[in-house]
């Protein structure tokens, strides 16, 4: 299947500062694609280029197999960096402009999205009277307008309260279930871990890794074990074949295996046969956070 978005060797510099260095990746159809990286890693620059806000110095990108154009942008509901609206207009009037430019949605769907993002009661208030969170909701509403097949969110939960964050997360899950492709930049790892199927990790303009979450984030299986006698447990585990490394802390011991190879039952059997009764055995994937720090630390 043709990827929704393919990026080929994009580079961008601002004077001496190279914001993007030869970045390439693809976003498959139906993916929830998380773009991760610390502040200043080039996430927003990347998204700005594929929306024709910034001009790349070199490289190309394709949406739906075609070079980016106004027509392709109309098929993408986007929230880039900040909510950008006319301050003196109400939510409804602002969305009328979004709708008129993009050709997505009508008066009825404007009301509908305002209900989805919980701004319906305030739909006739000027944008300038909105709180930060409400502005962000309106921007999400504008992206949802007319039910586009692709959604692009740059830090969608900026400025939202914990309830709002949870709601957006749920919304993204619902949208993903409907088969939409979602591209999302975030530095909130927890958020990405909970909803994304694919991920790209960037640092100082360089793409460190990209692909399905399982491949990028879990290159090791970690088996966490505990028993009454941890000294004995450790010596027994050391005789088990095939692990990469072993580590321990106060309450448990961790055995590291290559991705997808941890033989849980065999470990359990090995311990029992050597007189150890386990009170805990868990298969863990490396958390996104630790993986992220590992990738982005010097």
């Amino acid at each position, binding site marked *: 299947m043709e990827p929704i978005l393919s990026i080929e060797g994009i580079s961008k510099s601002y004077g001496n500062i190279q914001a993007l260095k030869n970045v390439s990746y693809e976003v498959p159809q139906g993916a929830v694609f998380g773009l991760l990286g610390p502040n200043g890693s080039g996430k927003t620059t990347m998204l700005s280029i594929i*929306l024709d806000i910034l*001009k790349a110095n070199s490289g190309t990108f394709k949406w739906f197999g075609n070079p980016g154009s*106004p*027509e392709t942008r109309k098929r993408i509901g*986007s929230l880039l960096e900040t909510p*950008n609206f006319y301050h003196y207009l109400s939510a409804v009037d602002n969305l009328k402009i*979004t709708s*008129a430019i993009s*050709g997505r949605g009508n008066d009825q769907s404007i009301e509908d999205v305002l209900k989805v993002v919980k701004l319906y009661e305030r739909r006739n208030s000027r944008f300038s009277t909105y709180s930060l969170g409400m502005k962000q909701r309106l921007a999400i509403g504008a992206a949802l307008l007319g039910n586009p097949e692709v959604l692009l969110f740059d830090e969608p939960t900026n400025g939202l309260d914990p309830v709002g964050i949870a709601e957006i997360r749920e919304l993204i899950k619902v949208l993903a279930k409907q088969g939409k492709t979602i591209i999302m930049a975030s530095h909130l790892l927890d958020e990405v871990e909970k909803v994304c199927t694919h991920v790209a990790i960037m640092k100082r303009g360089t793409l460190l890794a990209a692909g399905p979450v399982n491949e990028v984030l879990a290159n090791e299986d970690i088996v966490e074990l505990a028993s009454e006698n941890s000294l004995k447990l450790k010596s027994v585990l050391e005789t088990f074949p095939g692990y990469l490394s072993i580590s321990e802390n106060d309450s448990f011991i961790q055995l590291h295996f290559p991705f997808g190879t941890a033989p849980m039952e065999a470990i359990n059997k090995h311990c029992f046969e050597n007189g150890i009764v386990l009170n805990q055995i868990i298969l863990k994937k490396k958390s996104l956070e630790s993986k992220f720090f590992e990738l982005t630390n010097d």
Partner: protein
Amino acid sequence: MFSLIKIEWLKIKKYPAFWWMLAIVTLTYPGTNMMFYYIYSKSINGKEVANNVAKMLLGNPFAFPETWHTVAFLSSVFIIIPSILVIMLVTNEYNYKTHRQNIIDGWSRNQFVTSKLFDVLIISLVSTMMFTLVASIFGMYADPDNLNRWAEQLQYIPLFFIQTFAQLTVAFLIGFLIKKAFIALGFFLFYDLILEKIAVGYLRFKTDDLGRFLPLEISNRILPWPAFTNRFGKDAKDWYVKSVAAIPEFLIYTFILTAAIWAFCYYLHKRRDL
């Protein structure tokens, strides 16, 4: 194209500054002309010899067909009012970052510049309509005997429109490049009201009138001083005849400059980072 106008209208129609401008233009165009008309009436409606001389000299600048020229000239001084609106409309887009959002939502960069071109056109049209209305009312009121001459000198209506459009284009360029509302407004006010006026005067005496090629002066010269100014001696008459004769030449310069500014805006916007 129609959809661009429709979208711009969505932006403008609830923008308070637009209605303020309209209100101020509605007051200043007739207001200034009334003031001059009042001075004129005072100077001719007396029993003194001087009053008769004044009447002989001035004719009636507000009667048809002179009203088209006189009112156009006096009203065009207030280009500053619609200019403020034009600058606000373009700097707002940068301030709200909607110049980005419009592109994200599916406009091309050219469409964005075209939408602003329509803003300037719409505002020029509104100003011209207001001018036409005021000039007609003065023409009818000032000298009913001349009503049958209303169709003479109608060229001052399109000339007023062209001058307004050309000067608002300069205002647009300043807003488009400077991006910050107050800096752009300050710069335009200073340039229009002070800098260019001094430069034109200085260059008239120091050089062969090179000031005529300054951006606002080029189009100022398509609406020369009203006809009554030619009655103050031979020099004044020569000067008037010369400036009326120069209208077509400056019309061409105005077209070239205005087209060049818009071409530059399209070129720049297509290539720059937003």
